[in-house]
């Protein structure tokens, strides 16, 4: 029975045709793409603030059409390889939320916060590709967006459960669906041929110990998710602070003192990005 439900839901989730995004970022990117003087850097910076646009760009560049599936995990690289015409096409085919639910705005802010935190954690921990870490952070809750679009009744029941029983969104997902957004992330990552490091971080950010090949990037997303929740920046669907795996902190080679410095830096960054309209 449970298996059947999963197969059914998986089919429904992967059938997603279009994901809505926030009007603010889409407007900005549209303007930049139309301006002959704007640079790839400017456009990639704007796209990097939106999980849906970022996911679409990565999905496109990693599709077999281009001949290098699963290789590109940075937005800037994706833009260089896709070119302006394709970016324009992606933007035209993206719709905006008609009614912006407060919960969804909160999720966008949470995701951007997590991306920011991942970048800072990666730099502090001395990794060479902080941008890829940031992308993994940005996409870590994408499964929630896709589920909201494809399975709206489920979302309602999950939200209801979070409200009435005061449990975390993740726990509620498991009670209602039998699995969480991490599973949905894993389906999407494979279906869209995203690079292995992003896939692993998206699939295992709640269980970082299970990451096989990319434990660092997975641990970074896990720790960042915790930090963003601790700062109460944005909203991931509940008011709970997630559990922090000490092992994940170890994997990153961070000590308490490092975490404190990361939190200081994060506080400043959050001040900057909270000015963005959500």
């Amino acid at each position: 029975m449970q298996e059947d439900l999963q197969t059914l839901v998986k089919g429904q989730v992967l059938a997603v045709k279009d994901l809505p995004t926030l009007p603010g970022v889409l407007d900005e990117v549209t303007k930049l793409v139309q301006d002959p003087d704007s640079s790839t850097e400017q456009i990639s910076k704007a796209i990097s603030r939106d999980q849906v646009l970022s996911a679409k760009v990565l999905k496109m560049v990693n599709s077999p059409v281009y001949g290098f599936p699963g290789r590109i995990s940075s937005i800037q690289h994706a833009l260089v390889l896709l070119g302006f015409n394709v970016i324009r096409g992606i933007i035209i085919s993206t719709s905006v939320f008609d009614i912006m639910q407060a919960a969804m705005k909160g999720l966008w802010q949470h995701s951007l916060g997590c991306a920011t935190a991942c970048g800072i954690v990666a730099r502090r921990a001395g990794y060479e590709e902080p941008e890829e870490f940031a992308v993994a952070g940005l996409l870590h809750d994408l499964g929630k967006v896709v589920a909201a679009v494809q399975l709206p009744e489920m979302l309602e029941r999950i939200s209801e459960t979070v409200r009435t029983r005061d449990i975390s969104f993740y726990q509620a997902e498991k009670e209602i669906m039998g699995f969480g957004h991490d599973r949905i992330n894993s389906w999407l990552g494979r279906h869209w041929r995203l690079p292995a490091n992003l896939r692993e971080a998206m699939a295992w950010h709640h269980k970082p110990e299970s990451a096989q090949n990319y434990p660092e990037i997975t641990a970074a997303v896990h720790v960042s998710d915790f930090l963003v929740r601790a700062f109460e920046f944005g909203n991931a669907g509940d008011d709970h602070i997630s559990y922090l795996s000490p092992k994940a902190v170890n994997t990153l080679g961070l000590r308490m003192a490092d975490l404190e410095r990361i939190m200081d830096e994060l506080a400043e960054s959050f001040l900057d990005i909270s000015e963005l309209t959500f």
Partner: protein
Amino acid sequence: MDARVSPCYFNHPQRIFLVTVDSELLRLLEQLWWPGCMEFVHFSRATDALEMLFENPPDLLLADQRLPDMTGAQLANLVKAENVYRQLPVILCLDHEDMEYPWDWNEVEVDDFLFRPFMAAEARDRINLTLLRALRALDANPLSKLPGNTSIIQRTQDLVERKEAFALGYVDLDHFKSFNDKYGFSRGDEVLMMTARLIVNTVRDVVRDKRELSFVGHVGGDDFVFIVAEKRAEEVCRRIIAAFDGIVRGFYDQADRKEGGIRSTDRKGNACYFPFMAVSIAVVLNHGGKLKHAGEAATIAAGLKKKAKENPGSSYVIDQRRA
């Protein structure tokens, strides 16, 4: 208004062999293009055309199905059976009754057909389209779909003859072979596809004005060529290098990424280390129209490339010699 394409969008006059007993057809066709754009050579018999077809093939063969010595389809198959002539586009001229039963186009290797009564406008555009389609298909690199050597040489020669100043960049990859050897050719092809996209988009991004000179071709393997105005060359090189160095890491396995390259052994069993692939770019300038022919650019680039390769990472060298 003149219905002819003005003046002509082919680089050089197109030779068309017309094999038909219908002399009206020749007269009809000849008035469809500007003088000097098309060159028609008329044959009444297939056998008369055959030797010339093999010896000095035209740009297009237009054959009537009804010929005194064989059918147009047979003539087409005779020519197309040989791989050296396969690319020669063939248009078959049919009568209405020929269309009663469906043709087996697997058996008859032609590229298009026209049928009686001929409409001048249709004939003109089908011939133009067939020629252009053949030009595009003929020289596209099968992997990257970028224009190949014929187009590269034609484009360069054209600029050289017009004494136009331009910069021609030869791009190739360092350590591509070791990557290919370790990961296999399909992973190697991924890198080539990525490089092709990268060069095309970088050139397009630097040269935003469509009227300005810009061209990208794929010589083959890990060799690419771009042509831009002299003033754009440096920026194109810098951007290609920056993007390539950032992107190429993602094409290595996780373990090699951490190592910073590939460890392997050579044929003698010695341990070797190959860093990440890098791009070397040699830029030849046709400053003041100093180049005499397209081949000269290739020779100069070969010399410059050695200099660019001396640098262990990605680098570019611009030809500093002045005419």
